[in-house]
């Protein structure tokens, strides 16, 4: 056993061990990506409850899919792909019942009860941050995803293509559409803010 341990263990090694059923290896992969995936889903969904549920779902799906993966697995892209599919599923279901617009508001509301020095509160209290997340929540799921991957996670168009199953040029255009949508939604959010400060009307405006 000491024989292989001397060689610094790279990701591919962990993956192949995890594929063979090595639980410790899966744990290592989980620990390496838990935060990143959670953060990504948090931005996609805009609240910690969904982030919890979907991170859990993502890693469970990953665990089950592991034996079928190829040897040269890009773990980051693969996990993001699973996570984004999980997010899209949920968002698609919710869009039908127009649940979404209220989410950010509700989330903000949750924070009101928190003590002032609560780190989570501090983290989110910043006005711009709240608006950015609110705008995200109002965007179409695919555009939102591309934008989060590009601007929040700082991924390259190539990686995004791999995650979303798109060609490079398709990524470019979904990013363009995403930025345009962000701009437009941002305006409506701003208008709503100024019209009735404090109380946000359904920003979709009906």
């Amino acid at each position: 056993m000491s024989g292989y341990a001397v060689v610094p263990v790279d990701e591919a090694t962990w993956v192949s061990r995890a594929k063979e059923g090595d639980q410790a290896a899966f744990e290592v992969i989980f620990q390496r990506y838990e935060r990143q995936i959670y953060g990504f889903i948090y931005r996609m969904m805009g609240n910690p409850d969904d982030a919890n549920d979907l991170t859990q779902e993502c890693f469970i799906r990953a665990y089950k899919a592991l034996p079928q993966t190829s040897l040269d697995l890009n773990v980051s892209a693969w996990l993001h792909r699973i996570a984004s599919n999980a997010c899209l599923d949920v968002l698609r279901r919710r869009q039908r019942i127009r649940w979404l617009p209220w989410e950010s508001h509700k989330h903000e509301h949750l924070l009101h009860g928190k003590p002032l020095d609560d780190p989570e509160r501090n983290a989110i209290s910043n006005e711009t941050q709240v608006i950015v997340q609110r705008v995200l929540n109002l965007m179409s799921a695919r555009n939102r995803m591309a934008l989060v991957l590009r601007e929040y996670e700082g991924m390259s168009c190539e990686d995004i293509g791999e995650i979303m199953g798109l060609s490079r040029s398709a990524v470019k255009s979904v990013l363009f559409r995403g930025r345009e949508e962000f701009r437009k939604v941002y305006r409506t959010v701003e208008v709503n803010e100024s019209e009735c400060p404090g109380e946000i009307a359904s920003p979709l405006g009906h």
Partner: protein
Amino acid sequence: MSRRDCESIRPLISAFFDGELTPSESMALHKHLALCGDCRRVFDEYQRIRTGFRDLTPSPPPPPDLARSIWSETIDRPPASRSRRLLAATSLKVGLSTAAALAVLIIISAVLLVRGYNQGLTPAVSSSVPLTDQNWPVYQPIKIQFTKPMDHASVENNLQIWPPGERSRIPMSWDNNTLILGSSTSQSTLFLPDTTYQVVVLATAKDSYGNPLGKTFSLSFRTSPIVDTAKDSTPTPQPTPNASPTPGTGQDPAIAQQSTVPSSSVITPPSQSTPQNVVPTATATATPIPTATPTAPAAIATSPSSVVNTPVPTPTQQPTAAATTPTPSPVATPTETPAATVQPAVTPTTADLAPVATPVATATAASGTPTASVIPVTGAFGSVYWAFTDVQTKLGAPLSPEAAMNAAELGFQRGTMYERYDQSEIYVFFSNRQWTKFQDTWTAADGTGGGPAPEDQLWIPKRGFGLVWNSDPNLESSIGYAIAADEHVMGGVVQQFTNGIMLYSDQGFVYVVYDNGTWQLYPDTSGHGDLITPTPVAGETPTSTATPTATPDATPVSPTATP
């Protein structure tokens, strides 16, 4: 500007932010933005989207029980196809605990063994993004990857970024062995556009086992300009400051000699820009000449045969090297110098390499001193003067002890301004390693002046600096805008030498200002104990000091080299 034009341009704006533009698309975008206000607004908005995302704090950490609930669905409930797993599942708790114990054991033993393996190795920088001299987008963080785990605090304490002021503004974080500049877990920042950066990790930075880096790492790059019509006229002048560095001085703003890792080519340039300087100093001080050679590629030291090829870059140095030959004898008295304490440190390293070199090395160190036997060069200045023999050569002997004075410094996109209040003199240091000096004529009656520049994070300088900046229209294109609204006022230090001065900036830099119109920047390593001399010199000086010895030994070779 027709609507159709805009429609075709908008996707290009987006692609610009993804770094996906072809040169011709980029040109089309530039042209269009120069004329179309609407699209400029869109450009700004895209940029603000990016800033908005970058300013998002990281999401709250996943709850600790998340892992547990995932285990209960995965590892604890393994796929039925595997009989080995099934067995584990039946023995449930017991199986789990043994599996966990085994896992822990594997990890611990792996960690221990890897650690033992790592412990002894000297750390180094294995790669950087960008590479030296690359053009770099302002929004892309810089990555410096080390070969092994580093002591984060130590690296950060030994990290310097030029232009001054940027060190404190740019957030940093770590991803395993990689240092990331420009983004941290809580924030990320755009680099300044169209700016020459120099990032230095000092040789004293330690890995997590306490082994020092040993060689100073230096990386220089220039950021790409952000498209902005207000500065549409600048692109043309801008190449000028850049043009001169590229052929010779390369990454230039000059911690040059130390940048061992990124490219050895960095080592050669300094001599090229100052060849005229080398010669006069040589004649003046006579002895320090051997130091002229340190800049020559290290290869010379190792294989005499290569000497024939290497002299090419600096023909001017060859005569000086020849002049050296007589000098080695005077092993002199290194102790003459008050600061001589430093020199012994040089000698041992040299001796390790080639015993022959030892006398020469001592001669070198001692040689600078005869003229200056009583005037010390210490502290930050000493750490540069005694560590870099070419600085000694070019600067000559100290004429007076160092003197404290009030000073101010202001970083610019492609240079800095440094004012000595004792003389009301403003030095302008250009990133192409030229400098000029202005008299500060500013009085309160002139008004503060200054203000924000057309671009975010950039300013028009105030007061005396502003007056100078406004007086010469070329300065805007050569050094660019100020990178802070106000100058940094500090206690400065100056020391006069035969051929120039040294100026100290408390932002961690020593400016070596030569009378011939060039300058060099060195990190202040004096705050790092007595490691000063051995570390930066270790890699380079011994090899280079060995050169003079190689010359006398291989007498047939040096003549061929000289012409």
